[in-house]
C-alpha cells in the first residue's frame, strides 16, 4: 500500500484559513493528507508546536500565514518569517529534511494556492517516506501554559 504522508497544517485565521475555506467553497479537490488547525496569527506558532507535531507522528508540517505586509495583526507574520527559518535549520540537523517543514504565505483569496501547495508538499513528503521519529520528545521539561 502506498505511503500516505501525515501532514499537520497550522493556518492563520484571517488569511490562510479563510483561503482554505475558499478552496472548499470553490470545490477545488486536493490531497487529503494535510490536517489543518487554526491559530489567530502565524505569529502564534511556537517552535514547540512543530517539534510536538514531528514527535507525534507528523511526516510534514505546513505553516501558512498572511503575505508580508498584509498581516491582520500588522507584524505577526514578520515574527514567523524570523522564527521558522531558524527552526528549520535546527531541524535539518536532527535529520528532518527541509521539504518536510514548509512556510507559505496564502491570502484569503488564494484557494487555488492552498490546493497547489498541499498537493505539492504531499508528493514531496511521499517521496521522502515516513519520518518515523519514534523517540518521543519529553515535553515535560519544555514550557507549558
Amino acid at each position, binding site marked *: 500500500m502506498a505511503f500516505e504522508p501525515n501532514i499537520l497544517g497550522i493556518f492563520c485565521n484571517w488569511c490562510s484559513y479563510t483561503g482554505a475555506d475558499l478552496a472548499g467553497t470553490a470545490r477545488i*479537490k486536493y490531497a*487529503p493528507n494535510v490536517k489543518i488547525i487554526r491559530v489567530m496569527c502565524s505569529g502564534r506558532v511556537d517552535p514547540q508546536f512543530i517539534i510536538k507535531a514531528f514527535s507525534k507522528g507528523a511526516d510534514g508540517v505546513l505553516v501558512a500565514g498572511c503575505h508580508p505586509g498584509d498581516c491582520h495583526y500588522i507584524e505577526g507574520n514578520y515574527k514567523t518569517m524570523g522564527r521558522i527559518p531558524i527552526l528549520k535549520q535546527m531541524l535539518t540537523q536532527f535529520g528532518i529534511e527541509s521539504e518536510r517543514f514548509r512556510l507559505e504565505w496564502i491570502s484569503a483569496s488564494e484557494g487555488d494556492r492552498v490546493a497547489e501547495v498541499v498537493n505539492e508538499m504531499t508528493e514531496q513528503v511521499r517521496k521522502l517516506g515516513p519520518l518515523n521519529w519514534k523517540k518521543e520528545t519529553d515535553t515535560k521539561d519544555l514550557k507549558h501554559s
Partner: protein
Amino acid sequence: MPPKIGVYICHCGTNIAGKVSIDGICEFAKTLPNVAIVREYKFMCSEPGQNLIREDVKKKGIDRVVVASCSPLMHEKTFRKACQDAGLNQYLLHMANIREHCSWVTEDNASATEKAKALLRGAVAKVALLEPLENKEVPINPNVMIIGGGIAGIQAALDIAESGRKVYLIEREPSIGGHMAQFDKTFPTLDCAACILTPKMVQVGQHQNIELLSYTEVEKVDGYVGNFKVKVRIKSRYVDIEKCNGCGDCWQKCPSWRVEKPKGDKKVVHNALTLGPPKSIYMPTLQAIPAVPVIDKESCIYFKNGKCKICVKACPTGAINHDMQDVCTEIEVGSIIVATGYDLFDSSKMQQYGYGRIPNVLTGLEFEHLNCASGPTGGQVLMENGEPPKSIAIIHCIGSRDKNYHEYCSRVCCMYALKFAHLVKEKTHAEVYDFYIDMRAFGKGFEEFYNRLLEEGVRFIRGKAAQVSNEAIYPEEEGKLVVRCDDTLLGRVRRVPVDMVVLCPAIKATNDAAEVARLLGLCHSKDGFFAEKHPKLAPVSTAIDGVFIAGCCQSPKDIPDTVAQASGAAAQAMSLAARGSIEIEATTSVIDEDICTGCRICNDLCPYHAIEYVLDKKISKINEALCKGCGTCTAACPCGAISAKQFKDNQIMAEIEGVLS
C-alpha cells in the same frame, strides 16, 4: 471532574453526508476520550439542530461541545450563542471543519472519512482543555468617520447626519464630489451629473452634523470597534477657509497655469481638460464644496522662485497665506466607512491603442471632461486641433476582461459607451463606431437604453478592437486614426478610419489601495479591491468589526449601486452606534505574574503596544483593552508566562496530537 463532551455531527444536507460516512464518524466519536453524547443531524445550524445542543446542555450535563460541520468562520457565532442560551459558557465550544476543509475538497469518500475522523479527534482533544471566558463590554463612540467624499461618502454622510449623529467626512481632494462630479451625464436616464450631485454636496457642506475635512489625509488608525482613534493631516490650501468669500478674483488674476496650456495647433489639450480654472490657484470645479480655492504648490510662481503673490493682492479678505502649515489632529470615532473609490487603468500600458502616444485618443474620463459644459470647450466634442470630429470610435474593455491586466469586467463601461455614443450623436454629426465584445446592459433601464441607441444610427461592431494606428495603408486612412478589429458578425478583419478614439479603461482599485488597507487592517482580494466580509450576504462589512466599505473601493459599480451600498454601510454604522456598547472577544493574552521574569522580550513585539512593564513589580503586564489576541507574544515568551486564551499551548498541542494520531 472530567469534562462531558457532546459531539454533534452535521450532514449539511449532502454537502458532508454525501462524501463522509456519518455513521462511521459517529461510531468513531463514541470511542474518543470524555465523549458523553454523540448526535448527528441534517442541519446543525438550524433551530432544531441548535436545540439538540441546548437540550443536552440543560438536561444531560454536557459541559463541552464539539460541532463537526462547516468552517468556524461560518457558524462559530451561531453555536456559541446556542451554548450561551443554554447556560454553557460560549467559549467551551470547538468546531471541526469537515466541510470546507474535508468533504468539499476530497476526491474519494474513504480518505474524506479518515480525514474527518482526524479533525474530529483534534477538536475533541482541544475542547476538553478549553476554559470558560467572559466577554468584555466596551462603550461605543456614536460618531462615524467616512473616508472618501465621492457620491458613496456623501450619501452615507447624509444618511447618518440626518439620523442626528455626528459624521466626520474626510476627503483628500480640495473638494468633495469624487468622480461623479467630473461626469457630464449619467446613464441611462441622461441626468446631468452635476445637477443631481451638487444639491447633495451643498447639503453636506451646510449640515450641522457633518464636519467636512477636505484636502485631508488619514495617517494612522488605532483602536478597535467603538473606539477608533484616527490621526489626520489637514493639508494646507494656503487659503483660509473662514476668510474666503468665494469671489474668484484670485484665480482670475493668477498668471500661471497648473496644466498644459493650448498652444499653436494644439487648441484642445485632451489630458488637461480642467473643469475649474486651470490656474495655479484654483477650485477643482466651480461647484466645489467647500467653495474655497487651493494653491498648487508645484506650479505656483511664488513657491517656485519667491515672486508674484498677485493672488494675495487680489484677495479682498486677505484669505491667502503662502505660509500656512499642515494641521495634524486626532479624531475619535466608533466606526469607519471606507468609500475611497477607484482609479482608471493606465491605458498607455496597452501601447497598441496609442493612448499617450497618438493624438485624439482619449480615456472615458477625459471624454467626460470634454463633454462637460464647465470644461474648456464648453461641452463641445473637439479634436486636438479644435475641429469637431467627423467620426469617433469607442472601444470597450481596455484592460478589463483581460488575463494580462484585469480579469474582471468593469461593469459600467458598456453603458457609458452607449451614453457617449448618444452624446456624440446629439452634439455632432459624427459617425460613431462602437467596438464591443459583449453588450452588458443588465440594470434597470439599461436594455431599453441600448435599444434606443440601436435606433440612433450608431454603428455597433461586435469585435474587440485590436489596435489603433495613425499609419495609413489605404488612401481613405490618410490623416485618420485606424481602428483594426475582428468583426465577428461579418467574419472578417476590418480597418475603420476615424478622427477620434475613446477608450473604456478598466476600473481598478485606487493606486494606494494597499496602503489604505494596511492603515485599517483590511484585506483586499487579488484584484486589489477591499474584501467584504461575505461576497453574497455581507457586501458592506469587513473582517474588521466597525469598519465598513461602500462603492467602487469594494468593486466596480454604477451610481445607483454605489448609493445603495453607501446607505447600507451607513445603516450598519448607525446600528453599531445605537447599541451604545459592544462585547469584545475575550480571546486576549494574559501574563502570569508569578512566572514572568521581567525579561521584557514581549514588550516591543506587540504591534498594538498592549504590553507595559510594571516598574515596581519588575514584570510585564498586558492591557486587555488593547490586546487583539494574536498570540505573537505568547510564542516568544521564553519562560511560558503568557497564555493566549482559547489558544493556549496545551490546548493547541492537544489538537495537534489529536489530528495526527
